[in-house]
């Protein structure tokens, strides 16, 4: 039976790196001390777009181009382009179609955008892998995750304004008769906080009718304890591993949501994974949302933490919330 294996991965981030001090001063001036929040989430620096030319699509193009150059592949080699973003630069046409044009894709290539918020790229990887298992005509897929949340973060909202970083990740997967690759996945959905992160807060229909003032197009965020997903995530990951007869000690890298170092440690401990296995890049990159588990994967590969044949566990969570976990053989 064929497997869907990772060919390679690459990333892109802007050059401008911003430390915590900028945000601490910003919120100190508003009478809000965010030092505890930044420490609890594990922030130190993040890369930020500081010009008018870059956005989620341009970052996606850069990550995809880096990857194609690295692998020696071209747009013509790609049978499916999946683009995951909660901040797509365009609603239509699809951003995957824009990428298709940018990389000079083939006429038969499938172009799909998807959005599962911060869980988006992981969900896209999982959905594409399953689609490829069922459709042998798709030999190779380019999966991209890119978010540019900053323009939609209220300067009065510490969570959205001070924690997110800008970056994109691109991965190519390939159908391979000899490989294991994608093994299994699990979803766990609980809508208890479905209204806590709304964007656009008024809904698209109203925005289309009434327009929006500059600076008012922000996420409406009602703070809540983000660790509420940890217990359910741990349980679903245990189910995922046990039904595939994979022991925690077989996992060589855990590429988790980089929102919170506390959540990463808690889930790791609950499922019996050591701190050295859970990759943490949220101190350098900030929280890059949809791409964050894959930027962690990129780090695990480039640092030598994982080798071909090693098992990698992914877990992330999308607003609302939805836990998504999967296990793959690299």
């Amino acid at each position, binding site marked *: 039976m064929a497997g869907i294996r990772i060919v390679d991965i690459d990333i892109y981030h802007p050059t401008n790196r911003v430390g915590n001090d900028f945000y601490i001063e910003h919120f100190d001036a508003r009478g809000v001390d965010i030092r505890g929040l930044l420490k609890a989430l594990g922030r130190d620096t993040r890369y930020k777009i500081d010009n008018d030319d870059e956005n989620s699509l*341009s970052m996606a193009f850069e990550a995809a181009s880096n990857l194609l150059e690295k692998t020696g592949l071209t747009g013509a080699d790609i049978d499916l382009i999946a683009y995951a973003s909660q901040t797509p630069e365009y609603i239509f046409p699809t951003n995957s179609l824009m990428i298709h*044009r940018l990389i*000079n894709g083939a006429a038969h290539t499938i172009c799909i955008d998807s959005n599962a918020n911060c869980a988006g790229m992981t969900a896209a990887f999982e959905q594409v892998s399953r689609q490829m298992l069922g459709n042998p005509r798709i030999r190779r897929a380019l999966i991209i995750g890119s978010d540019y949340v900053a323009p939609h973060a209220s300067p009065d909202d510490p969570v959205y304004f001070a924690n997110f970083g800008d970056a994109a990740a691109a991965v190519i997967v390939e159908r391979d008769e000899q490989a294991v690759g994608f093994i299994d996945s699990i979803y766990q959905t609980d809508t208890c906080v479905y209204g806590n992160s709304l964007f656009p807060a008024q809904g698209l229909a109203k925005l289309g009718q009434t327009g929006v003032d500059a600076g008012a197009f922000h996420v409406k965020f009602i703070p809540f304890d983000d660790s509420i997903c940890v217990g359910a995530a741990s349980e679903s990951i245990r189910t995922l591993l046990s039904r595939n007869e994979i022991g925690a000690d077989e996992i060589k890298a855990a590429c988790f949501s980089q929102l919170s170092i506390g959540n990463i440690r808690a889930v790791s401990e609950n499922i019996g994974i050591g701190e050295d296995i859970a990759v943490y890049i949220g101190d350098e990159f900030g929280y890059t949302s949809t791409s964050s588990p894959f930027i962690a994967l990129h780090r695990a590969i480039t640092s030598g933490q994982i080798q071909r044949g090693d098992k990698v566990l992914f877990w992330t969570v999308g607003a609302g919330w939805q836990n998504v976990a999967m296990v793959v053989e690299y």
Partner: protein
Amino acid sequence: MGSFILKTDVPNKVLNIELEGSFSQEDGLRSISAYQDTIAPINTKEYELNIDCKRLNVTAPEIVPLLEGCLQMFKKDEYKKVVLTLENNAILKMQLSRLGRSVGLDNLEIISTVTT
């Protein structure tokens, strides 16, 4: 068919190029030949190059390799600055920005005009 106008502004040391229409391979070669003739008497290191692509048909993906070749040529000619103006086309701007970086044309400025 593509057309091009080359104008050398000697007092201000600016070479202006206007590109218009759809460029075939032959159009491209003709324009490059005319460009070489135009720059022969000037020292391009002292000049700024302004290229107006607002009326250039950039819908064909084939235009990109042609433009990449031009960017390599401009890099070799060592202009003080290269300014490329496009009619609002974010996609082409992304492509050219990356191409400019890949050929090492660090002084490339791309302006994507917005018409309402």
